[in-house]
């Protein structure tokens, strides 16, 4: 008995080494941080509800209105896009939470605790961005699939529903999840660049919503060339049914959107590394 205790003692000590900071540990820490804030839960819930709720709502409304639609409306009706339209609201929730992931730490002073625990700093940014992107991708891909299926179930009462085997359907459903994932990364990057909640949220909204609206005012000879490269316009090429004139093709458009996020994250990394906390 006593031998057993003696044998175990050094092992117990080995079980808690003077632990080094590893990326896996930083990920674990950021995961704890993410899941222990109520704002994470509520904002994610809002995004999922928006995505699925509007899929159901628009499905029901359009199924109801179908007999009264004009021939033109019927001809251009896009059942897939209709059921996924909730992404427009969901992107706001995702973008806001992305900003909060970092600006919340600056606002409360938590960032100094975080960075003194991980003095190399960058692992904190990569862990936050990576975790949040994965969580967003899983929830929003599942959400858009549910939105699609429930929307089509409602539309099929009029025999106007689409199925996943229809051209573009899989791309648009997965694309919605991917688009929102990149919005999440953009939000985290902007949060780290601006370090302020109000300013960060305004910047994300400005980039995604205001910029395309402003650009509408450009003379069309310019707008035709510029607008398709604006972040949200480029990203939403992946979720559009038809590749129209003066829009980017789905995957190139999505890559342009990714490039914005990567550039913003790179800027955030440089700033985090260089600036005083």
């Amino acid at each position, binding site marked *: 008995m006593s031998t057993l205790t003696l044998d175990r003692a050094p092992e117990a000590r080995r079980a*808690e080494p003077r632990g080094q900071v590893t990326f896996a540990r930083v990920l674990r820490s950021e995961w*704890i941080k993410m899941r222990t804030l109520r*704002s994470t839960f509520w904002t994610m819930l809002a995004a999922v509800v928006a995505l699925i709720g509007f899929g159901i709502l628009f499905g029901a409304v359009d199924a109801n209105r179908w007999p009264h639609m004009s021939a033109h409306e019927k001809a251009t009706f896009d059942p897939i896009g209709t059921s996924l339209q909730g992404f427009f609201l969901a992107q706001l929730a995702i973008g806001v939470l992305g900003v909060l992931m970092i600006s919340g730490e600056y606002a409360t002073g938590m960032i100094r605790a975080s960075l*003194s625990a991980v003095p190399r700093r960058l692992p904190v940014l990569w862990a936050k961005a990576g975790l949040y992107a994965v969580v967003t991708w899983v929830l929003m891909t599942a959400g858009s699939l549910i939105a699609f299926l429930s929307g089509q179930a409602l539309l099929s009462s009029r025999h106007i529903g689409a199925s996943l085997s229809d051209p573009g359907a899989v791309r648009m459903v997965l694309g919605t999840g991917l688009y929102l994932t990149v919005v999440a990364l953009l939000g985290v990057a902007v949060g780290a660049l601006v370090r302020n909640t109000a300013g960060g949220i305004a910047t994300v909204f400005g980039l995604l919503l205001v910029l395309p609206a402003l650009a509408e005012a450009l003379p069309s000879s310019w707008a035709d060339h510029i607008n398709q490269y604006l972040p949200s316009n480029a990203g939403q090429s992946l979720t559009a049914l038809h590749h129209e004139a003066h829009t980017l093709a789905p995957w190139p458009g999505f890559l342009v959107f990714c490039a914005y996020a990567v550039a913003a994250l790179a800027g955030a990394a440089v700033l985090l590394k260089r600036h005083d906390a």
Partner: protein
Amino acid sequence: MIEAHALTKRYGERTAVSDLSFTVRPGVVTGFLGPNGAGKSTTMRMILGLDAPTSGRVTVNGKQYAEHRAPLHEVGAMLEARAIHTGRTAYNHLLALAATTGIPRRRVDEVIEIVGLGQVARKRAGGFSLGMGQRLGIASALLGDPATLVLDEPVNGLDPEGILWIRNLLKDQAAEGRTVLLSSHLMSEMALTAEHLIVIGRGRLIADTSVADFVRTAAGASVRVRTDEAERLRQLLVGHEVSVASVDRGVLEVTGLSSDRIGRIAADQAIALAELTPQQASLEEAFMEMTRDAVEYQAPAREPEGLAA
């Protein structure tokens, strides 16, 4: 062991810390003292690698903070009580910090007990009082059982019982051979907790001394003497480099002579003394004397009335 070499930090035009060199040794509590705005917090942020020095360097246990592979085990820090996300519970806050370096859950429970937050550990930190926030900050500092502790104004907001608790905690930590650096703008608090002092003002080193020496040098000590024959004694004592002031009827304040000498002179002349007390300059006075020229924010001195006349 914390070593600063010619540490300088400028924010634009403003120099927060200027050519500051000092060593904080293990085994004693070192007080880091200076008026508000003297550069204490800036220096502490540089120790922890949160702010980069404009020039000079500071090392902890021989390395710059960011070079340590297991920083929480090297240095435990509380830079401000509110370096805590207000939406997270105390327990989860500590758990997240602990996770970065693989500190087990058991240790989180342990430090919560040490700082006496057991009752509120599962409550969100946003609702904490200042004192509770300080305790949580101290818990974060102790988490990795570090060899060095750096605490910025740890007694702020604590009640008397809490102040006594932290005083003893820090002394115990130092007695175990740890390096303990704590800042304050209150000299009286430092005198009770610290053995060594580093005093700065306007970002410059003013003194690096033991608490006892600090008090001795900062202000001339005087001796209070009470006797029925005050006037006779006064005439006996007064002389070169000795000044005697009558504070009250029968009470003298003597500067420049030790109480031993005064007692001897009085005895030789058969003057009965009712009181013979060496007066220590109060610590706060000594501190104010020393940093008078280095106070960043000062209320304008009031002109004595009738001066113009």
